[in-house]
Structures are given as structure tokens and as C-alpha cells.
């Protein structure tokens, strides 16, 4: 027994190294949402320039929907945009936009340029509603159930892969 004690530091090192190795594989930008399974916050946002309808809490009740936080200045949103356009074309789920901290007109110009996948878009110019949603950056997407509760939060762009693997199964389960 005693002659093996020399190996103890090595074992301790391996244990610590394994712990950190697992830590390295985790994405620090994935902050767990505190609002999971909670009702969406009460809010009412005006429409962005050039669009008629804004967005408020009542719009998010009655049907499973997506709330997508985007901005014209957000690079990830540009990457995500074609995926949203495709989802909108399929038409299986309404997508609502929160235009986060954009200058007046920028959000509308962005949608004119790249296409508008949203059923309606609220103008969150001062970012207050985003904070109510616990948003840490754009893009972020929330899956809202028919009762208006937040059931999932996607941090970062929705890619075809994250859609198929993470988001779609949740939506199907909520709809069934």
C-alpha cells in the first residue's frame, strides 16, 4: 500500500484534468434561462417603422410559436435568417420578431433587403423587453407553448442542425 502513495499526486492530477477537460467542452455562452416554463413577460411593443403590427404578450397565446430576438447589426442573425425564411415558407409555426436595439428604420430596411419571415415584429429600441426575456445577446429564440409559457431558449443562430435536433422535437411534443 505504502509504496503506491507516490502515485497519488498523479491520480489527483488526472481527476482535476478530467474535470477541466469536461468543462472545456461546455459553451460558456449557454447561460441556462431562468424563465424556463414561466409565462412570457407582460409587454407591448410598437411595430417597427414601415410595418403595421407590433408585438405584445397576447399575440403569444393560443398557439405554439417562436419569438426571435434579432437586430440589423447582429452578424449571427444574418447567418440565421435563411433558416427563418425557410421555416416561414413551410408555415408550420408562427415566428414573431423582437427587433432589439436597432436605430429607427434599420430593422425595416433589413427585412426589406433580406426578406421578412415574421408574423409581426415588435420594436424593442431601448432593449427593455429583451431584458424581461433574459436575453443575453442576439440572436436568441424562444419556443412559446399555446398557454404562452417559455419552453425552450436557443442561444445563437438557429442552424438547420439545431432546428432538427433541438427545437423541432420540442415543438412537435408541444403540438401533440
Amino acid at each position, binding site marked *: 500500500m505504502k509504496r503506491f502513495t507516490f502515485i497519488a499526486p498523479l491520480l489527483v492530477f488526472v481527476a482535476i484534468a478530467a474535470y477541466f477537460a469536461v468543462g472545456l467542452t461546455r459553451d*460558456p455562452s449557454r447561460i441556462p434561462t*431562468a424563465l424556463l416554463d414561466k409565462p412570457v413577460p407582460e409587454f407591448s411593443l410598437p411595430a417597427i417603422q414601415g410595418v403595421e403590427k407590433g408585438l405584445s404578450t397576447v399575440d403569444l397565446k393560443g398557439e405554439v410559436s417562436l419569438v426571435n430576438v434579432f437586430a440589423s447589426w447582429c452578424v449571427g442573425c444574418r447567418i440565421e435568417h435563411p433558416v427563418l425564411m425557410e421555416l416561414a415558407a413551410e408555415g408550420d409555426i408562427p415566428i414573431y420578431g423582437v427587433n432589439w436595439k436597432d436605430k429607427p428604420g434599420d430593422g425595416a430596411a433589413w427585412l426589406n433587403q433580406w426578406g421578412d419571415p415574421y408574423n409581426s415584429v415588435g420594436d424593442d429600441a431601448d432593449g427593455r423587453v429583451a431584458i424581461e426575456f433574459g436575453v*443575453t445577446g442576439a440572436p436568441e429564440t424562444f419556443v412559446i407553448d399555446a398557454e404562452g409559457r417559455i419552453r425552450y431558449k436557443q442561444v445563437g443562430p438557429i442552424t438547420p442542425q439545431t432546428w432538427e435536433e433541438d427545437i423541432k422535437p420540442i415543438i412537435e411534443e408541444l403540438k401533440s
Partner: protein
Amino acid sequence: MMRLMLVLLALSALTFARAAVEPDEILDDPALEERARAISRELRCVTCQSESIDDSAAPLAKDLRIIVRERLVAGDSDAEVFAYVTDRYGDYVLLKPAVKAETLLLWATPLLAFAGAAAFAFFYFRNMREHQALTTTASNRDNPENP
């Protein structure tokens, strides 16, 4: 040497004074502002993660600083302000984690590590003393090689 130390000390004091709070955010009431600063130093900036919102120049940190001040002006206690932010962002934003069942191990770790080290040291030194006692008695014996 002494002078150099003083200069370094003065410079380090300057770095502590650093904060991202912008003049237009500062409250008129110095007592409230002081509370706002203290709260801000305990809240993590969610975009930069390793900074407090008091230190961070990120737009989201600024928004939260303003919200903290608004809540204080509206008459919230410090605890209510913290609750407002953690309701939305979770315990994650607390730079000093709350003491509760899930975080017990976290808080106990330094104590456990210290207890472990103390136990190790105790047995290590006790063994060493016994060992020493044995070797001294051994070397006190006469033997042919070492008269």
C-alpha cells in the same frame, strides 16, 4: 525604492477607481448611487461574463445599471433589486453565489480542502516522527561499520 512603491500604490488605486458608469447614469442622491454601485459590483455582465456590470462597457451592462438605479429610485430594497435581475437571468448573474442547498458544496469546498490537507499533514508528520524515532534508535545502536 520607497518612492517607487508609493507611485505603484497610487497607480493601483487608480485602477480600482475604474468603472464603466457613465455620467448621465449617476443618480442625484449620493446614498442611492452608492447602493447602486455596490449592487452593480455584485452583478455579472451577461455578455462579457467575467466582468461585473459596474466594470463593463457593454450596452447590456449599461441597460442593467440603469434598471438597477430605476428600481432603487422606485424604492426597492437591495434584495428586491437582486431578485428582479435573478428572476430574469437566474442565479448565474450573481458574482457571489447565493448560499442554498445547490450551492452548499461550492461554499464548503474551501473548508473541505482545508480539512483534507490538515488530515493529510497530521498523518504525514505523525508517520515521519515515528519513522524518525525508529531510525534514531537504530543509529544509536552500535554496529561494526559505524562504531
